[in-house]
């Protein structure tokens, strides 16, 4: 009797492992193995096409902290994130709140705000290049009309990152708005009615006591995804500046090292630093906000 039971358990364990094997195999091949290769590569001076390679240990990582381009790219990325994350979260929430109550025009606004998400950034970048152009651009024309001087948004080093962030915001808001709209429609109407009876009727207090806390899980998701996509900004830089006017961001710096200068070992080290930073940022947010989030 006892051994029968053990046999059954043993068989069940094997069946379980067998069923999990294909997924486990794919996970190993597609994620774990490349990460290990990256780790090994980052400890060498491998260059694309080179026939020899030298073991460097942690030299690549030490070099990264003294590399002015990489440090600048980190700074640029942080500035970019500090604009895109709060802006992308709060503006999309504002837009979602405004169009949530619309009945007939809601789908119209949804489409309008969602269009940038579906459009190709490389193509849109040319439009932005034109809009932001110091001489021909619409934005400078408008600034001039109200008496402000012309600004070289893309070529002036002090303006280029905020300009890129603006484009990033423009593209991000539609996506976040859709997530927030889904979150808003999850809040039961009865809660607002109960709040009304309890005396919570001013718009601001409805928001601070009901809407905002009820949206915590949504906000958590939006913050993490916005943070990751802001960290990964690349296409606008490639299309608009190619890193000129000191506009390198982290991913662009890695791209330069790896695919322009073919220093794969160093690029691998930078990539690992990049991954570690994303991982750390996301974990902190998840841990910190998950405690506050309520899941109904």
């Amino acid at each position: 009797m006892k051994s029968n039971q053990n046999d059954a358990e043993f068989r069940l364990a094997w069946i379980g492992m067998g069923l999990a094997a294909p997924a486990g195999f794919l996970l190993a091949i597609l994620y774990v193995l490349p990460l290990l290769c990256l780790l090994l590569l980052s400890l060498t001076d491998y260059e694309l096409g080179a026939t020899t390679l030298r073991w460097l240990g942690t030299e690549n990582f030490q070099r990264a902290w003294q590399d002015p381009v990489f440090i600048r790219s980190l700074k640029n990325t942080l500035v970019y994130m500090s604009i895109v994350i709060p802006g992308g979260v709060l503006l999309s929430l504002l837009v979602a709140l405004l169009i949530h109550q619309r009945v007939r025009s809601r789908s119209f606004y949804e489409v309008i705000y969602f269009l940038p998400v579906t459009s190709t950034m490389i193509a849109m970048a040319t439009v932005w290049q034109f809009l932001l152009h110091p001489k021909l651009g619409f934005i400078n024309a408008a600034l001039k009309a109200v008496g402000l001087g012309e600004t070289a948004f893309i070529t002036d080093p002090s303006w280029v990152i905020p300009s890129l962030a603006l484009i990033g915001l423009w593209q991000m808001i539609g996506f976040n708005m859709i997530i927030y709209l889904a979150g808003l429609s999850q809040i039961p109407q009865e809660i607002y009615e109960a709040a009304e009876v309890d005396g919570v009727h001013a718009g601001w207090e409805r928001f601070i006591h009901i809407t905002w806390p009820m949206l915590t899980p949504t906000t958590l998701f939006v913050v993490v995804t916005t943070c990751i996509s802001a960290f990964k900004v690349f296409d606008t830089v490639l299309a608009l500046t190619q890193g000129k006017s000191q506009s390198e961001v982290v991913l662009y710096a890695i791209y330069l090292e790896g695919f322009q200068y073919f220093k794969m070992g160093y690029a691998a080290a930078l990539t690992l630093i990049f991954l570690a930073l994303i991982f750390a940022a996301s974990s902190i947010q998840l841990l910190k906000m998950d405690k506050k989030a309520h899941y109904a």
Partner: protein
Amino acid sequence: MGSSLSVKNISKGFGINKALVDVSLNIKPGEFVSLLGPSGCGKSTLLRIIAGLLNADQGDVALNDASILGLRPNERNIAMVFQNYALYPHMSVHDNIATPLMMSSFPFWARQPLIRNFWPGNRSTNLSIDEKVLSAAKGLQIEMLLDRKPSQLSGGQRQRVALARAMVRSPAVFLMDEPLSNLDAKLRIQIREELSQLHKSLGATFLYVTHDQTEALTLSDRVAVMDAGQVLQFDTPQNLYQKPANLTVAQFIGSPQINCWEMKADSLGRLNQGEWLVQGNLQLSVNSKVTLALRPEQIQVSLNASEFSQVVDLRVKARVTRLENHGPEWIFWAEPTTGKPIPLIVRASTKSMPKISVGDILWLGWLLQDCLIFDPQGQRLDINLIPGSQA
């Protein structure tokens, strides 16, 4: 402490749909009144208009004879308990119960986040709020749950928290929107009992919306039966059952449903069902259709025509088609063997039931004084019927 509540000629439409048509109700101070009706009859709409969550197209709502239509929901001296409890999921039980007090005790700026921590005098107000919350919680035996979140509570506990949140500011009128419909059958009976106790101890006026007639009839002093946006009858549970104003009320109240026969008035003023005749002081035109109705428990059962234990006015021979044993009583369906095969529903106590099974032939008989009679428009006629003579 309870207030009188009067609803005067309230009408409300949503687009082309009429949710309420000229509804009026006068509720006495401290009374427990139910609004009973099928879903979509307008009962919840009426409750929301009284609460101030919806605006009526016409009419007035008054508390102690003073109109409250111009007031916000929180200024109306009412509290509401919602069907799905509508607790704030992100707040502890304590904060849920405290919310109405927070909103009414602090001026606008004193209750804003951050500022409220430094506002002078807030500390003592907070202490008095905590005291009231605790006493409301104790009244409902949930004082040990104050630190929990609603998601950590069972359905019955959530309902108690919702009740405590309503109680905590001692309103004159409690509005309840199907508060028991999400609870299981056993708990429903328990909370029903507690609601009744609560009503007695608070002395407040209760207005209770439900589609469950057992709840309405057992809890209420009076019940307003609603259908299609109108109040069909507003009366005590006993009168609703014994003297329904019209056919719709008669058919809605009572389970199993009341038995109905359509009868035609003949040229002699008698009512003809085909098999039997009845007559009374009827002023009906020839061929007008009248409905005769009889509660299932008014029907006597006998195995042969002459052995009824009590006197009956009318009798039919019938075949049993379906049988339900409910323990203390039996409910069965029987089709008359002659005439129209409309099954009659019979409810008989187990003690007085002969042993029968499906397919058996037996006799059913009843007294005409137990029958209700409704005119062609469905209104009940207060008339005594006697068996009709053939002449």
